[in-house]
């Protein structure tokens, strides 16, 4: 068996008040997997994703991604870790309104020090591949939700990340656009991209994921997805 790409070991994340958002979660994900994290609202899905992305730090336990102890990284190192290994897709797209679509997509590469020319070529290629190249010079405000999420995925893929993390990528989209993004993620996975996506959409989980992980009250729950959601 290949070494896991993501390894969570007894990870706890406690906020100031209330029960821990994540409670001694252990989980390991292999390269090439497409894992869907399922669970009701407030069960700790986003918290877990943030920990994997190095956006947040666990109160206890270790997070290892691609051999990197993410929980130990400082601010600068975690930023470098993110831009080298992680692509992030959010529910509300989080595109920068003042930058054109192309500039949005180029940004992660430019932050990593890639020259403008090279970044432009890579962005054009990605936008073409995701079918939004005609909007390259437009501003995100003019795009539909589905188009925006495609741009966001293109941006996430810019630095050829080992891991694509998506938090409710279809949560803000209508059914048709949701379908569209679902298909895109499936294709990416088919091309070998490791994907971890958070959702409470069972259909999305079943269609895109090779495996599902259920969270409930900050713990990994056992049982089938169907049982857990009912």
């Amino acid at each position, binding site marked *: 068996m290949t070494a896991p790409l993501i390894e969570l070991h007894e990870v706890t994340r406690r906020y100031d008040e209330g029960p821990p958002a994540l409670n001694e979660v252990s989980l390991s994900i292999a390269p090439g997997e497409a894992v869907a994290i399922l669970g009701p609202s407030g069960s700790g899905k986003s918290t877990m994703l*943030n920990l994997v*992305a190095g*956006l*947040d730090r666990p109160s206890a336990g270790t997070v290892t991604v691609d051999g990197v102890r993410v929980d130990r990284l400082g*601010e*600068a190192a975690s*930023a*470098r870790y*993110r*831009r*080298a290994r992680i692509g*992030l897709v*959010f529910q*509300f797209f*989080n*595109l*920068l*309104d*003042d*930058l*054109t679509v192309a*500039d949005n997509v180029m*940004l*992660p590469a*430019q*932050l*990593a*020090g890639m020259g*403008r020319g090279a970044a432009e070529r890579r962005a054009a290629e990605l936008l073409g591949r995701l079918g939004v190249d005609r909007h390259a010079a437009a*501003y995100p*405000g003019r795009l539909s939700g589905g188009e925006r999420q495609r741009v966001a995925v293109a*941006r996430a893929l810019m*630095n050829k990340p080992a891991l694509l993390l998506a938090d409710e990528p279809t949560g803000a989209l209508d059914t048709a656009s949701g379908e569209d993004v679902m298909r895109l993620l499936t294709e990416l996975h088919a091309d070998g991209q490791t994907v971890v996506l958070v959702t409470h959409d069972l259909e999305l989980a079943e269609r895109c994921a090779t495996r599902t992980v259920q969270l409930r009250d900050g713990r990994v729950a056992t049982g089938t997805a169907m049982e857990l959601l009912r």
Partner: protein
Amino acid sequence: MSALTRVVRSGVGRKRVQTVVIGLVVAIAVTSAVLGGSLMAASQGPFDRAFGQQRGAHLTAQFDAGAVTEAQLAASAGAAGVAASAGPFTSAQVELTDEIGHPVPPVTVVGRADAGGAVDRVVMVEGRWATGPGEIVLASGDRLRFGPEVVGRQWKVNGAPVTVVGIARSASDTAGAWATPAQLASWAGDGPRTYQMLYRFSAADSAEEVGTGKTAVEASVPAGALTGAVSWLDVRREAISDTILLVPFLIAFGLLGVVMAVLIIGNVIAGAVSTSTRRIGILKALGFTPAQVTRAYVAQALIPATVGAVLGVVAGNLLTVPILAQTNQLYGTSDNGVSLGVDALVFGGALAVVALTALAAAARAGRLRSVDALAVGRTPRPGRGRWATRLTSRLPLPRPVTLGLAHPFARPVRAVSIIAAIAFGAAAVTFAIGLGTSLNRVQEVEDIADVQVNALHERGPGEAGPGGPGPNGPGPGGPREPEPFNDPAAIEKVIAAQAGTAGYMGVARGEITAAGITGELESVAVTGPDSARYYRMVSGQWLTGPGQIIVSTPFLTAAGKQVGDSIALTSNGVRLTATIVGEVFNTDNDGLQVVTDMATLRAAEPELAPSMYYVSVRSGTDVEGYTQALKTALEPAGAAADSLSREPDEMVVVVNVLTGLLSLMLIVVAGLGVMNTVVLETRERVHDLGVHKALGMTPRQTTAMVIASVVVTGLIGGAAGTAFGVLLQRTVITEMAGSVGFRLPSSVLDAYGSGELLLLGLAGLVIAVAGALLPAGWAAKTRVAVALRTE
């Protein structure tokens, strides 16, 4: 606690940075306004204030003691128009020598039992009033200035020992020294004696009114008894020629401070309200009326502003007191400088400015429909300044920098206001440095010579002003003219041969009259190869031969001449015609001195020879050592060398302290303004910041982006501010000189080198970056998860 109070409270608590910035800016603005205002009030006719405080004499009259009795003089107080009088006091000229036997110029000593009275309440500067025999109080004024160390020394009057017990200042300049009446009587002995009477008139605003009073007094005493009288208007003219210089300077700084405070306070408050627009929307959605919202925000601004204003008034007064202590010495006024009127005006004015800006901004927010307000909070109007973003993205710079560079263009109004703030800060620095340089150059012009060489005369202390006599020599009341050298050529040979000599000039002083100007003027006949280096030209050129004169601006004004004109002169009874070849900056004799080549005056006085040499040493030479060596070398030639002391002028010190202090405050205010703006920007962009960081922007890149966001404003502000500062410096310094009738040489006007200007231009950038550092650090530290949650 009402709902409104709770909103205000939580608002103040939530926006800690803005609250602190409002408080600090108001505090600093109020401090400088109180300082400037108090000094302005204090300098507003410092002579008049001193004169008023001391109930100065409108007329200081001398009477022949042989022609009038004390009773007759006392009765003269009843003359028409006399409102108050003091005297008669006996007075006499005495020979005063200091502790090492140097003669002090002859002084008029007045016998007065005490410093108070109905007129001329003399103020003690140091020590106490003379109460017994063997005691003398020296007057400190324009001509003679004594340090406090003089008090307690043993001097001699007409050869008899006397203790200096105090230094006093009379605004009316009524005496050179005072002693008890009995002591004075014994010093005067059988010699000529006069009575002094001091009068205040009910009307004395013009020369005519003073003249009417004088005529009435004269008529009340036996004919011929009045031997001399000085009008306070003449004393005043002499006195204010110095202090009048401060006024344009204080006005310039006062205006800078006020404009700056309004700008920054307006900026901070408007910013505070604009970031709250969303909150305002929520409040209104919850049922607050627009009026309640407006009130809540005005209160939020007024709370820290009031605290700041109170602190500022206290700080301003604390600063004013020591600075005024300096000017008090200069003007002879005695008060602590706390002006309740200024305090109240500044305090009220500052709060009014805060309230008005807050009201305007909050009223706009209060009127906003809830829906719009809620929407505004979410998306801060994208679209503005996208052209700049596109433009900067092409620059061959790291992406975080090019992103930051475009930020100010998204909010042009805010950018302009912050550019203005930075510009004022930079203008203040430029102005301060330029003014300091100019004033020091004026001093340098007066202090060009390092060493003076005379034949017989030995200099006593206090002969000349604190700057030491320059080429321009001691003013009126100075010592008798020294003897001319018997063999000037020999002296010149010694000076020229002395190691370290950079240049020298021989001078013969005399009297001369010029067509169009009444009265005798001082002539300075110069000789020697380096005479040009002792003068700074305003226009025209230096003397190239006989028949030419150099004069300063007041002379030209008085004579109605221009450079290039000829003028008729009379020297030693001989009429000469000379051409005015140059205008020089020379404040001596109120700028009425005539400088010419020795050869010009030899036509009238063939024996004319220098009586003094001014020598300057090469830079880096030890003046004291040089003087000693020159002294030794000159001894066989029958001449002595003295080094010229260079104490900084008190006015220059005051101005330097003030400029330093005020510009420091303006810079801090500008920096706070920048900081506040960057905090606002960061808060508004916190979500974008989170996105950037999620995409891999490191803390260092974040810092770079935030700092880059103030570079453009800093550069523009710096450039504009420097230009404005130079303009201000030139205007103020020209105005200062113009108010006393002088034009300035370019060496004084052009205070900045091109390298300096470049550095000053970058001052704006420094202010901007300094202001952005703190919030940039905060931005770099913002946790992504937190930033992204801020929806």
